[in-house]
């Protein structure tokens, strides 16, 4: 029996990495949900796809895409979109997701997620691209906020204004990456809770938790890098609690790690911390509702 959070609609799980596969299978009863990186599976064998499909029957599974480039005034990469659509069709995940980022333009591949200018042309392009993606895949992606170390040149809106307008225009769910949010707050001198509250929390359906490290740039300024090589810091769990106290829908929380994998007991502890934050946040929401009634 999986240990569910206070609200039965909330669930806590992990991003699948092959390095964690054995431990994930051993502890599957403690894991509410899993996330598969779509781009790693584009050339997967039939056996692997069959295994993923089987896994999707055992535990709610989401498919996470990283290189469509939805938040761009330019069109989404149709070939990649077709591959994502095929994977969704073959694996039948619970849902799929992609970032609000641009990753290429003018034939140049950035090779990473970049924040496009927060301005009307990007908004219009993002809404068009998400609609294309919805038609190709058959469902709306959960859209993820990204970390950026530079305020996108040419922006006329703040990040939260841009994200809010894309979500309004697409009606897509928000995959809220709390460490990305925290990194942006840190790097641009903002209050992470204020930034969190400025987002349309009623549209949050899924959450990423990860960690990073502080490095100094050439000018000696300390910057927080979202590297997925470190444990989620305490503040990220605090933000999850705030989110749970305000979110109106069940949350699918995924802990991401891309390297320097810790002992799996530490991963299980992080999942327990996430469940605790969710439970406390939900309790607070109930208290506030009772007080208001």
């Amino acid at each position, binding site marked *: 029996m999986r240990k569910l959070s206070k609200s039965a609609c909330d669930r806590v799980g992990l991003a699948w990495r092959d390095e964690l596969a054995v431990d994930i299978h051993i502890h599957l009863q403690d894991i509410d949900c899993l996330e598969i990186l779509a781009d790693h599976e584009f050339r997967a064998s039939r056996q692997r796809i069959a295994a993923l499909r089987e896994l999707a029957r055992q535990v709610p599974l989401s498919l996470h895409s990283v290189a469509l480039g939805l938040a761009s005034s330019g069109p989404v990469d149709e070939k990649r979109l077709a591959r994502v659509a095929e994977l969704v069709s073959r694996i039948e995940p619970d849902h799929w997701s992609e970032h609000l980022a641009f990753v290429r333009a003018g034939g*140049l591949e950035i*090779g990473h997620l970049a924040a496009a200018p927060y*301005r009307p042309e*990007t908004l219009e392009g993002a809404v068009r691209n998400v609609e294309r993606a919805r038609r190709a895949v058959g469902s709306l992606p959960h859209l993820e906020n990204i970390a950026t170390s530079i305020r996108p040149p*040419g922006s006329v809106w703040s990040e939260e204004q841009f994200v809010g307008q894309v979500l309004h225009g697409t009606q897509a769910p928000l995959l809220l990456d709390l460490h990305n949010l925290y990194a942006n707050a840190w790097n641009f001198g903002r209050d992470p809770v204020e930034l969190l509250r400025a987002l349309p929390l009623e549209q949050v359906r899924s959450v990423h938790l990860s960690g990073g490290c502080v490095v100094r740039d050439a000018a000696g300024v300390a910057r927080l890098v979202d590297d*997925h090589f470190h444990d989620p810091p305490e503040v990220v769990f605090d933000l999850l609690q705030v989110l749970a106290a305000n979110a109106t829908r069940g949350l699918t929380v995924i802990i991401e790690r891309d390297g320097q994998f810790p002992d799996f007991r530490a991963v299980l502890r992080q999942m327990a911390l996430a469940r605790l934050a969710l439970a406390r946040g939900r309790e607070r929401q109930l208290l506030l509702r009772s007080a208001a009634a």
Partner: protein
Amino acid sequence: MSAALEVFLARLYSSALEAESFLRERAAYARAAGLPEKHLPDVLAIDAASLRFTAQSFEYKRRGSANPR
């Protein structure tokens, strides 16, 4: 069109060397790259330390095996 601005930014983000070239002579570089004049103020206002950090960080991640996010 912000497509031209995105193409310009992709050029800076996809090569730390290009970003350095831009920072040495911003206006001349932007004009030579074909950036429309209306976007010139946007790129002249770029914070140099942030651009350097971003371009180098992307370069580092392109060379490494980390997932691009």
